[in-house]
């Protein structure tokens, strides 16, 4: 029992970093994705095309490769980011690409009558988006957004490749030291706990927003 408690403590330390990357990514990627989605749906054609290329690159290459690029690759251009900065930048850009496309689909699914009513009531573009279109669009995109939010919990494990000590690495270190699978089981439980929280947050949000339809 003491053994389990001691290695749990070590794994929990790694969990702190996992959570940091998780929240930094969410806080950075969601607003960025909303802005990008608005750019794609109501910006000039050139912007739409540029964002299309951005999504093509970030969705079309491995997240692992992107992580290598921002950590090691940028040094060629004389830019060297600390591991956390490189990880945050990679995750934000990668997840914003997926979320942008999810939000775009949500925005485009809103009936054009909503825009017309807002126009007829003299709401400005930003008022229309902020108060009328986005609240409805974001509600519709909760299920696919939940998928992304769950995937992100697990993707944080990738930062080991740039030498960061997140949860899975803590578990691996103990495994190497003690040759016991217990740390992996504990890490798995932690991942399950984290994803359960995410699932519940989304379930609550969906329930709360159900009132109007």
């Amino acid at each position, binding site marked *: 029992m003491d053994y389990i408690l001691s290695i749990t403590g070590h794994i929990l330390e790694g969990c702190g970093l996992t959570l940091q990357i998780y929240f930094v990514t969410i806080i950075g990627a969601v607003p960025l994705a909303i802005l990008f989605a608005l750019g794609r749906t109501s910006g000039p054609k050139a912007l739409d095309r540029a964002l299309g290329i951005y999504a093509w690159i970030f969705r079309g290459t491995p997240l692992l490769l992107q992580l290598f690029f921002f950590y090691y690759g940028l040094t060629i251009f004389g830019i060297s980011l600390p591991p956390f900065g490189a990880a945050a930048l990679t995750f934000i850009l990668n997840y914003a690409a997926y979320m942008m496309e999810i939000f775009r689909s949500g925005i485009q699914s809103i009936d054009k009558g909503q825009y017309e009513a807002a126009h*007829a009531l003299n709401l400005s573009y930003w*008022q229309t988006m902020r108060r009328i279109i986005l609240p409805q669009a974001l509600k519709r995109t909760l299920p696919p957004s939940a998928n992304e939010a769950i995937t992100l919990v697990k993707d944080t494990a990738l930062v080991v490749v740039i030498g960061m000590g997140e949860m899975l690495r803590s578990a691996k270190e103990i495994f190497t030291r003690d040759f016991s699978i217990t740390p992996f089981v504990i890490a798995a439980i932690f991942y399950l706990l984290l994803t359960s929280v995410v699932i519940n947050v989304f379930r609550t949000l969906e329930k709360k927003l159900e009132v109007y*339809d």
Partner: protein
Amino acid sequence: MVIVKLSNVHKYFGDIKAVDGVDLEVKAGEVVSIIGPSGSGKSTLLRCINQLESVDYGRVEIEGQAVVEVDSSGKRSHLDKSEVLKAQKKLGMVFQHFNLFPHKTVLENIIEAPMLVNKEPRKSAVERAEKLLKQVGLADKHNAYPSQISGGQKQRVAIARTLGMEPDILLCDEPTSALDPELVGEVLAVLRDLAKANMTMLVVTHEMAFAREISNRVIFMDQGKVLEDGSPEKIFKTPEHPRIRDFISRMI
């Protein structure tokens, strides 16, 4: 006072001339109905007035202020944006499909624009909204969501929402066409009360009896053109154009 003035307005969809050189004036206090076969450009004409459709050629004025002016080469005049916005605020529009905001309650639907656009304090916006809801007979529904009320009630809320912005003219685009027959009456009753209260209205409708009863003028449109513009008596009893006679005999 002339509220809306259209001069030689054209609107094309590809090769189709949806609106083909229409002149029209609506004066304060007038109730004008636009009737005609489907596809005759009635709704498009209405939508050209508040820029839901961009005019291809012609001029639209609201209370003397030009809001669109396009010459024959398609060149748009540069108009003072803030003046145009001010003029547009005098227009209210009621849609065929209501277009209520589904994520907002009935009350929130009404107070949204006054608070957001006119920066009206919430308290006074709510007070006015409650009054408007009473006026359309829905005082008990202010906390309902649009999905929880009937089509007729939705359209009455939509009318109250439009009135919340205190427009000088109400543009109604087939306000009862999407309703079950038994719900048409309650919406027409609200519009009738507004007409009696001297609200200026321009109504695209298929309700012939209603057009005849509440309008000062009836406009008959066909293939993007105004075929006849006259009193309801004249249009319904002794129209000059045989097409109008045909249409009316089929509708009644």
